[in-house]
């Protein structure tokens, strides 16, 4: 179904508001389950991601219990993991590693990629560029269902005899290639690979769709430089995904081959289980290169949409244009481009050629520059604003704070000489959690609160939103800030317990401190879960443009309409950031309002 035919089809029935029911007799299945409507699909992504995030966060609380009080009995551990992996209420070391692995994988891929890009690219791209739907509703529908299937497979490992994959979310071979090396490298690892393959398919289907839609389906007047920053972010993110996910796919295929077909892409000179294996000539470092070639762009695939959402939310709620719109676009593009040439900074201590290491140091520090520009621009957007503190705005500001904190420690890690002593220890864990696990999640939550009226036609409860923000923000820093010190004390990551080394004995109270904040923060999310699901059914009905925003999604009717606008598509006359423009009656001017005589667009007066 091409976009042109679709548009004509709807315009021909402009007078008939319910043309969709008239012509496509939609059953429950085609309307809500296998829907090809971007709005339904975005909700499907969101709800699946929220459920996966809750599960993954639950996993983290289980292993944080073990880390704070190693070897102590907790009934909840036995209750959830049974006698096999939680005998007497003590977490099994193999299951500890499985929890850590699946927690990481779910959070990075299902929640922060599927849940961020999947939800908001789907929701906002057609809306904000003035299109009826995505270029291919069918591919979009497939993209969600592959995501759903991949989520099922990711959890399936817990229902196997030997347990889920447990080699860390990075699953380096030979550990992940040799079933004899660890229980988690048996069927669980196979399920992980299947899950990731399905996930990659989902991402590619989605990404291609987003790119084509943005380039081809913008409405009249919506030039590239009149697009909201959200769309720029989603576009560059989709390009990153399309170019880098296939490389992970190849890494996974070669791993499947080594596991099942006796090949030696990653294996050489291995003696295990009393046997010298036949494979020679391969190298685990090949996997690391292929993995991180995706792995690094992946973190920007996570971060850029969150930054895009924040640009929009800060601007709308500060009642000011986002400061430096073009600089922001340039930064997004610079970050996107540079993200492809920094992957080696995850591999400084693998034994690769030191000269190559230097190159990666240089490119990684370059990427700090556009990131800094974005942070400064957010702060300047607040300057002399008239800030309206919706819960979304709180989360957006929280994102800026944690983006700065986490980004700065990245500079230490980018420096290969300094990385030597902090690679793979809690310093790294602190860094990536603050930028991804806090900053990007805060962005996602900001997006949920802000666009809830478009997702569910209702409002979330404001007071609960405030409480949720402050608990989350305070506990997030409480959990992850002390981890820097654990890293500087030499504590490695992925350790079941620190009690095997006397040198870590004086750090026990830090682990307890972290876990307590994690538990409080985790419980705080229950407030969000309640608010999110309750408001879907009982929240106050929203008006059409509750935030007095300029972008096109707020011009659609307050009931989900197939084709978004009943009638003609909107025509755009100005950029989206005319907030508090001098000489205007209101403090906002929607994009559809024509320019006056002599009025300049794009930030001029």
């Amino acid at each position, binding site marked *: 179904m091409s976009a042109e035919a679709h548009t004509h089809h709807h315009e021909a029935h402009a007078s008939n508001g319910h043309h969709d029911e008239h012509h496509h007799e939609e059953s429950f299945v085609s309307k809500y389950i296998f829907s090809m409507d971007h709005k339904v699909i975005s909700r499907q992504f969101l709800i699946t991601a929220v459920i996966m995030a809750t599960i993954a966060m639950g996993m983290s609380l289980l292993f944080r219990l073990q880390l704070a009080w190693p070897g102590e009995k907790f009934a909840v551990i036995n209750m959830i993991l049974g006698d096999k992996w939680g005998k007497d209420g003590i977490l099994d070391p193999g299951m500890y590693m499985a929890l850590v692995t699946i927690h990481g994988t779910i959070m990075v891929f299902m929640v922060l990629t599927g849940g961020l890009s999947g939800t908001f690219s789907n929701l906002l791209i057609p809306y904000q560029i003035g299109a009826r739907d995505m270029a291919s509703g069918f591919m979009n529908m497939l993209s969600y269902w592959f995501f759903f299937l991949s989520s099922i497979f990711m959890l399936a490992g817990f229902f196997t005899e030997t347990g889920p994959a447990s080699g860390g979310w990075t699953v380096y071979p030979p550990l992940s290639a040799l079933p004899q090396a660890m229980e988690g490298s048996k069927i669980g690892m196979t399920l992980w690979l299947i899950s990731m393959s399905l996930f990659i398919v989902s991402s590619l289907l989605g990404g291609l769709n987003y790119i084509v839609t943005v380039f081809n389906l913008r409405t009249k007047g919506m030039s590239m430089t009149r697009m909201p920053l959200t769309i720029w972010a989603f576009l560059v993110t989709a390009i990153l995904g399309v170019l880098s996910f296939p490389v992970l796919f190849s890494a996974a295929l070669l791993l499947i081959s080594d596991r099942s077909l006796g090949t030696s892409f990653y294996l050489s000179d*291995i003696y295990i289980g009393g046997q010298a294996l036949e494979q020679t000539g391969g190298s685990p470092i090949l996997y690391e290169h292929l993995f991180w070639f995706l792995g690094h762009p992946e973190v920007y695939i996570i971060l850029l949409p969150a930054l895009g959402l924040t640009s929009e939310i800060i601007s709308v709620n500060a009642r*000011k244009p986002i400061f430096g719109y073009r600089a922001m676009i340039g930064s997004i593009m610079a970050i996107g481009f540079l993200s492809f040439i920094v992957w080696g900074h995850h591999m400084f201590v693998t034994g690769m050629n030191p000269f190559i290491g230097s190159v990666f140091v240089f490119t990684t520090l370059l990427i700090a*520059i556009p990131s800094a520009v974005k942070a400064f621009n957010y*702060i300047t957007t607040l300057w002399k604003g008239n800030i309206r503190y919706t819960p979304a705005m709180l989360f957006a500001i929280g994102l800026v704070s944690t983006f700065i904190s986490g980004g700065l420690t990245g500079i230490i890690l980018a420096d290969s000489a300094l990385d030597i002593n902090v690679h793979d220890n809690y310093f790294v864990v602190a860094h990536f959690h603050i930028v991804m696990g806090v900053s990007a999640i805060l962005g996602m939550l900001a997006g949920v609160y802000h666009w809830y009226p478009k997702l569910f036609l209702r409002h979330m*409860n404001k007071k609960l939103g405030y409480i949720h923000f402050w608990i989350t923000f305070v506990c997030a820093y409480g959990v992850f800030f*002390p981890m820097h010190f654990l890293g500087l004390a*030499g504590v490695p990551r992925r350790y079941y317990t620190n009690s095997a080394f006397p040198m870590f004995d004086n750090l026990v109270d830090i682990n307890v401190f972290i876990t307590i904040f994690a538990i409080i923060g985790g419980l705080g999310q229950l407030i969000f879960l309640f608010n999110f699901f309750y408001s879907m059914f009982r929240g106050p009905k929203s008006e059409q443009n509750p935030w007095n925003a300029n972008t096109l999604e707020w011009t659609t009717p307050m009931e989900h309409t197939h084709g978004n606008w009943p009638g003609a598509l909107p025509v755009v006359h100005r950029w989206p950031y005319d907030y508090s423009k001098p000489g205007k009656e209101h403090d906002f001017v929607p994009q559809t309002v024509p320019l006056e005589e002599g009025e300049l667009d794009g930030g001029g007066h």
Partner: protein
Amino acid sequence: MTEILIYVAITLALFVIGYMVRVYELSSSIRGKKQHIVTEGDNRLMARFMLTFLFAFFAFVIYNLESYGPRTLPESASAHGVELDWLFNFNMIILFIVFTITQIFLFVFAFKYYGREGNKATYLAHNNKLEMIWTVIPAIVLAIIIIFGLKNWNKITEPASKDAIVIQLYAKQFDWTARYAGKDNELGASNYKLITGENPLGIDSTDTKSNDDIVVRNEFHIPLGKEVEFKLNAREVIHSAYMPHFRSQMNCVPGMTTMMHFTPIITTAQMREKLNNPKFDYILLCNKICGNSHYNMQMTIVVETESEYKAWLSSKSTFKKKAAAPAEVKAVAAK
């Protein structure tokens, strides 16, 4: 039992919150107020929270620095590590200044510019001069950081000196073995196909260079002030030789030999005195997830005077001697 009560309590609390929310919404709609509208009162409250957070945040950071800072690693026990620690502190000072300035601006603006009735925001869309300033200044600062960093990196990664003591560190699930190159300072050839119970490193006995190699477990010793070069190997999966006190780390990858080197500058005895801890030991940890007992794969490192080191080393048997030893001696040596 207590656990179940806790879950029941949480569930009940959720129901209570739910009803309270419903009551609140109904009552505000009766009063004609829309609960989701953000009032000036809301803005003022949140603004105050923002400012309070700024102070609390810095207090928290300082608390962490005071309470946890002293528990980070002691001074570097390696020569190159001294410069690395200087570089780290130099970086942290810069980062800390940036952190402080930006967080202050963020939260002070968040406090100062909260939305008030009748107020209008200032329409400032861009300012190229500002953008230039905060592109160029970070670029310059980062350039300085890179230059210092890469200078250190080049020094650390240049080839070891010819007369460095060569030691192989062999990683396997879940322990370490050290093999000294011995008098000829060259490690004998090895091959994974030669691995047996008595020859866990697969040392090739036909290579004469193996004869003077010395294999030790549980702990290895190195002399003060002499450069040591480690050649790293792994038996079945990637491990990583992490010696945090010496600011050294290098992955051990099956199928290749990696290397790193350093010169120790503080003996175990001296460090024990400095830390006032007679039980202190330098330690080699595994730092790349390698299986279920990854968290307990360690080897003690002893740094001592040259004479102590020589005495210790000569008390160990060479590979040739061990190979020729009768079965009982081998059994004892294997422990």
